[in-house]
């Protein structure tokens, strides 16, 4: 049972480059989320989705885009990477029905130089 799988685990980008952070879950969860965690801080919500075809902005969406074409996958796209996007990115999911805790992936550590 893999849970929430994120790839890649580490990545270094140059300013202005683009990339997609992958997230997939095998628990048939309806709700999925992307958070970023800056050093010494809590997590901040970037985007979320309550089902395939439905996405919405969280607290810090600028510079990011998402899509949800299937229940399993929720990729996060960075366009024109900036140093301020250096962070650890976590994907999470939850069934969305009975107040179950969110299950988190292992994170993607992204540095933009």
């Amino acid at each position, binding site marked *: 049972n893999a849970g929430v799988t994120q790839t890649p685990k580490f990545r270094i980008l140059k300013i202005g480059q683009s990339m997609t952070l992958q997230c997939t879950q095998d628990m048939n969860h309806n*709700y999925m*989320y992307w*958070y970023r965690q800056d050093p*010494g*801080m*809590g*997590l*901040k*919500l970037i985007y*979320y989705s*309550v089902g395939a075809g439905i996405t*919405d902005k*969280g*607290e810090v969406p600028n510079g990011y885009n998402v899509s949800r074409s299937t229940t399993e996958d929720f990729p996060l796209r960075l366009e024109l990477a900036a140093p301020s996007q250096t962070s650890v990115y*976590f994907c*999470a999911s*939850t069934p*969305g029905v009975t*107040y*179950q*805790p*969110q*299950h*988190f*992936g*292992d*994170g993607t550590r992204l540095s933009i130089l």
Partner: protein
Amino acid sequence: ELKVEQNPLFLSMQEGKNYTIYCNYSTTSDRLYWYRQDPGKSLESLFVLLSNGAVKQEGRLMASLDTKARLSTLHITAAVHDLSATYFCAGELSGGGADGLTFGKGTHLIIQP
């Protein structure tokens, strides 16, 4: 806007001692989550508190929720080194958790022999 404030943000304590981490939140959606994060790792769910007066215990950790005071506590009893980690509380912006969690900044706990 939901605000979640934890204190203390840093705590160094000796093994065998007791201590409490406090989490104040500002939303009327009275569901509170506690997570643990080890350095460089993902977040692990500890407790989900769903109603006023809820108390949950797991080993040396006990969490409680007072919705009237909008306060949750995480109590550590007879601390051991293995409990060293960063502990986060998180609240829901709305009922059901569809639009994600708002995290506190975390309490970095070091337990020394």
